[in-house]
Structure formats: structure tokens, C-alpha cells
């Protein structure tokens, strides 16, 4: 199970990678979107887990452009963001192109993150 993780907060990115790896996932982590997207085009991940506010394009903008590409349509996307509270996980979602994407608030509870990743990664 491969997860593409994009977060410009390098500390949290490394820690999230560790959390996921310790729970059996293969994680490719990037601190900025361009190389993450380039990677995604070459290795279709099972899940994209990404921050919303990134330098350059925002997460939703990146997803909007990725989703025009046929091969990305079926890859699930989950956002990670300090814009929402970790407790709002269930109710908050980010709309991109008419679709609602699950959003995990930061700071997150490890168990909640794992539960959501498990639900979406296929």
C-alpha cells in the first residue's frame, strides 16, 4: 500500500511518514507539490495525503488539475490541514470540482489518522 504524502511542514511530514510506516504503509513524502505531483504521475499511489496550504499551488488546486487526468480519477485524496480542528474530522470536508474531500485537522490523533487512511487507501 503506497501513500503519497505532501506537506511543507518538514517536521510533521517526517513524523506522519513515521506513523504510517510503523503501521505497515509505504510512504513517499515530499515537502513541496511539484515533485510530489511528478512522482504521482510515474508511480500511481493508493492514496494521496496532502496539506491544503502549500507554497505555490494550494492542495485543492493541485487536485483539481490532477483530476483532469484520467489515471488519477480513481486515486483517493485526503487533506491534512491546520485550518480545521482535529475534532472536526467528520464534519469538515474540502470541496474540489464538486466533490467533497475528507479533511483531517492538525494536530491529529494518530488513531483517527490511521482509521481514515485505512478507509480510503485501496
Amino acid at each position, binding site marked *: 500500500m503506497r501513500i503519497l504524502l505532501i506537506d511543507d511542514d518538514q517536521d*510533521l511530514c517526517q*513524523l506522519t511518514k513515521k506513523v504510517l510506516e*510503523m503501521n505497515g504503509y509505504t510512504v513517499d513524502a515530499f515537502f513541496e507539490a511539484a515533485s510530489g505531483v511528478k512522482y504521482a504521475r510515474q508511480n500511481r499511489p493508493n492514496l494521496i495525503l496532502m496539506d491544503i496550504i502549500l507554497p505555490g499551488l494550494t492542495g485543492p488546486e493541485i487536485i483539481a488539475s490532477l483530476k483532469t487526468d484520467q489515471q488519477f480519477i480513481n486515486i483517493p485524496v485526503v487533506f491534512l490541514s*491546520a485550518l480545521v*480542528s*482535529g475534532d472536526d474530522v467528520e464534519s469538515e470536508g474540502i470541496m474540489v470540482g464538486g466533490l467533497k474531500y475528507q479533511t483531517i485537522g492538525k*494536530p*491529529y490523533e494518530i488513531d483517527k489518522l490511521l482509521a481514515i487512511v485505512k478507509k480510503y487507501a485501496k
Partner: protein
Amino acid sequence: MGKAIHVVFLDDEHSTLEIIRHEFSQEPYGVFLTNNPDQAMELIRKEKIKVVVSDQVMPNVTGVKFLQNIKQYDPNIVRILLTAHADFSAAEEAINIGEVYRVINKPWKSIDLLSTVRRATERYDLTIRAELTNERLKAMYEIQREFTSTVSHELRTPLASIKTAIDLVVKKTLGKINPEQEEVLGRAKKNVDRLKRLIDDILDLTKMESGKLKMSFMKNDIHQAVREVVEAQKDFAQSRGLQLKMSLDNGVPFVAFDSDRIMQVLNNLVGNAIKFTKQGGITIKTSKKFEDEYILISVIDTGKGIAEENLSKLFKKFHQIESAEANEEGGTGLGLAISKEIINLHGGKIWAESKFDKGTTFHFTIPIEEKFNSTSA
């Protein structure tokens, strides 16, 4: 000359206007006198007019009608009607429909008209000042809200790394830790979580206070919310050896409320009750009150009670009763302030009653009448 014109007089009789010119010659502001409503209106559009005084009986327009036009143009301009003695219907119409400030009978005493107009200009100044203050306050709230949401985001980002790092170790994901390490990190974790809740609560409260919180009101069963909260808090109560009971009145109708937010209030009240009760239990009771205008929800505990003088302070921000328990429990001091805002947004009330050593009851009401449609801010 050179005085700014603040008052406009409209009267079709030249002699009346001359009297007024004479009476107002010593005032600190200028007056404009005319027998032509169009001319009066033109000046009102151009100058910063505070008060308009109009005669009732004129050839082309009645004073009431003219003042109504003024009200439509700028409701802040204070309007005064001059009527012939005993013209009650004009006076009635002016007050009830035109909402004029005063009706003055002709002939008037010079001092009466002077002091009335003077008070009218003061009233105008006050209204404008209040409006300005109001706008400034709104702008300040907006700045505060923006600041708070930016700061929250900036605080959550580093906190996320701290929390995940601590959680990874505490969960022993990275390997065993000894009991002493576990205890030390447990304390760090507790406080990181408290800081996280504090940021969430401050953001929540700021959104509510600036009217930016999106609420979704739906006609719903309050008992459903009560049951869910009891289910969620059951284990916590049991861990303290406390009973969590419901006393639900079947006559309580469905009312319009925001389910998530009301559950937040209930969770807060029940959570507090559990924290501050040593033995006995907590009961959530529902009933219909105040001539069927409200439903009443009460959270009753058998704790040690709260002193009378502290009851009103409970709902203030960052107010926690100073006690070892309060410190140990790690509350944010914002729960009740948030609950109060939520209940206010529902058009209800929240308050506490307590007897020392007998326990405390928190009550809140939600109006039965459907004041809110599906959604509103």
C-alpha cells in the same frame, strides 16, 4: 453668516418663516427657510442636514407626506411637524406613520421651538456617533477574528509536530518505554491536548462572537441528543463511580436546534458535572416551561455546589473556580462561555442554580416557536 446649515424649515407662509428666521438668528448653526418642498429636498441632498421642520398644511404636499419622504431618504434626519391647533389626525399620522420626533402646535412659544430643535440636533449627533462606534466595533471584531484564525493556524502547525511526536512515543509505536518515561510524557501529552482544545475553543468563541459561525437549525428531537450525550459520557461517569440518569418528559415537542452545537453544550455541562461530583450522580432532565414557550433542559449534579457569588461569573471567559480539581481536570475555562453563546444563538437562556453541599443544576432553554428556518447565521 458662515454658519453650517443644520436645520431646514418648510412652511408656505412667508410671515411664519420670518418669525423663525428671527428666533433662530442667535443659534450656533445656520437654518434654511423655504416655502418650496423641492428646494428643501435639494438642500437636504447637498448639505449635512440634521433636522427638518415642516408645516402640515401646504398647497402641494402635506407636512406628514414630506417628512415621510425625508425619512425614506435618510432615517437619521430628525423630523418635526408644525400643526395648527387641534389637528389631531395629522399629529396622529405623523407620529404613528411618519415616526416624527415631535409635533409642535401653532402658535408656539419661541423657547419651546428653540429647545426642541436644539434637542433634535443633539439627538441626530448621538445617533450618528452611535452608528460610527458600531461600525468601528464591527471592524475591530473583524480584525480580531481574522487575527485569531491566523494565529490559530500558526499555533496548530508546530503543535501538530509536538503532539504527533509525543503520541508516537507514548503509544510505544517506536518501542518500549519505562514507567517513569511514560509518566513524564503522559504529563506532556495531557498539556499538549489541553493547548489544542484551548486553541479550538478560542477560535470557536471568536466565530460565535463575530456572528461568523454557521449554524444549521433543524426541527429535531432533543431527547435524541440527550441519549447520544449520555451514551458518550457513560464510561467517563462510570470511571468515577457516578450514575448518569435521564428523566425525559414525553410532552416535550420537537424544536429547531443545531444538533452538533446543542450536543456540544450538553457534553460540556455533563462533562463538568462529572468532573466536579465526588459521589452520587448526574441527571439530565427535560420539560416544557413558561406557558409552553420553551423547552427546558436541566443537568443536575450531586456535587459540592457553587457559592452564590460565583454563579454569575461562571459564564465569563477564562473563569474557572479556583480549586485543585479544576486545575487537575485540564479544562480551557471557555466551555461555559461557548455554551452561553450557542444557547443565545438559539434564542434561549442558560443559567445555574446551586445549593452548597447539595449540588448544582445548569438549566438551558430553547424556544418552541419556530423562530429559525432551516439555516441562519
